[in-house]
């Protein structure tokens, strides 16, 4: 499962649990217009850490807060890459 599809499935699952109507997830969708509140995002980030094994917000250098859904996905994708590349 790609990072993007993992994120999408978490957005959908949490929106369902929180009884919130999720806007169609396009890259230019503003996160605060997605229908989710801060608590929903907090739950998504916690669960993504369990699923993906990292929390990009917890990086050494400060990250810019994502504004759009596309920003959010890119933040995770760019954090995922260094972990995928090491020699095995």
């Amino acid at each position, binding site marked *: 499962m790609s990072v993007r599809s993992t994120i999408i499935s978490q957005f959908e699952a949490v929106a369902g649990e929180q009884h919130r109507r999720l806007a169609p997830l396009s890259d230019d969708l503003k996160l*605060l217009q997605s229908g989710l509140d*801060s*608590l929903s995002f907090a739950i998504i980030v*916690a669960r993504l850490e369990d699923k993906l094994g990292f929390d990009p917000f917890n990086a050494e250098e*400060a990250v810019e*807060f994502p504004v759009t859904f596309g920003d959010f996905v890119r933040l995770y994708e760019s954090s995922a890459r260094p972990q995928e590349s090491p020699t095995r």
Partner: protein
Amino acid sequence: MGLKPSEWLWGAMVTEALPAGSFHSAGTSVRLAELAGASILGGRLEELRGRTVLIATQDQLAAAVALIELDGVAQRIVLCPPDLAPVHFPHVIKSAEAIAWVRDAGVPEENGTGLDISVTVQPRLYVQQVTRQQSHETEWVLLTSGTTGAPKLVLHTLRTLTSIIVHQQASQSATPRIWSTFYDIRRYGGLQIFLRAALRGGSLVLSDPKESMTDFLARAAETGVTHISGTPSHWRRALMSGAAATIAPAYVRLSGEIADQAILDNLEATYPRASIAHAFASTEAGVGFEVGDGLAGFPATLLSAPGPVEVRIVDGTLRLRSEANALRYLGEQVVPIRGPEGFVDTGDRVELRDGRYYFIGRAGGVINVGGLKVHPEEVEAVINANPWVRMSLVKARRSPITGAVVTAEVVLVDEAPGERPKPEVLIQGIIEACRQALPPHKVPAMVRIVPGLEVSPAGKLVRPNA
């Protein structure tokens, strides 16, 4: 120059001239000077003189005006936050010994069952003759969450609530300020901003839960906000809105939660010309101190710094002693707020690293979700009602969005009536039960089934950070 012991809010607002500022909500504005000849209470102010009055309105502006009108008039005012559940009203009314309330249409009439006097208000003023005269040193009661889910009532006076504000006043210029806060003013952090705006001749832009972050920031910008406060979670949400730069404040304040370096750096980058400060305050301990050096935590030198607030670290938690401390809790079976030598134990754990103290969480496992306290015991009580659960442990998990989220570990029984549900069905059932019984921030984000939990020799669950 401080508020004199007998001073009251309106009296302090009009010492030299009528106040110049206005208070703004999403739909309405009130010019404070109008209160000299108008009232929100529609001619019923005198009925409330000497009474204990609940202020329970959905509308923040209505509550703000009622507070100004009732200080010095009522014996005691109880600030009910808009999310106070109907089930908790009887406890609050009884503990505070209230006999009157000021409500609006957003709060069901049944919540005030047992109260003799009911004044229903709207966020508008009625022009009328009004005699503003102090007869009482009004007690202010704030609500804070308790272990059982029922709120605790914390007693302050205008003097304890403003002791630090007034102390700071002498050193600051008298330029009118436009304040705003993401907080509700019925909570300690928001109330501090309300009082600063009222006492310093400023204006105040109130938030509205129905308004989007972008709209609120646009409204604050339009009003020309200069000073604005919120929790780190509020600020993260503002940054996520992409509209944070709509405002250009001179002063940005964070309180109510641990301010980490990431949020401080982000705000520094967004508001390069603002002075950015994170403050420590709690309903019980009052305003503690403000840190303005751009770094998380606070310098250890604060412990020996002269000033109105004495700071100590005992057993790894922060203790404060000052005139801003609350006086006591109200109600039956209450414990003293102040401990040995008059210090209030804030319950906030700190760790010393290289001459600086950093906040590392709360004692007793208390979880702070976006500035709202969660006592693990009340969540565990709901989880443990499930017949398949033997015991549970509710704890915090760090969150870059809300500071923390609630998680739970459960140990199952071997036998219970009926067929054993699949783990995922059981977990969904637990979460659903919590959602029915608790406000959203208290519902575990994740539930894990574990083989066992550590129990101390005294038979108590071993809590992390306890």
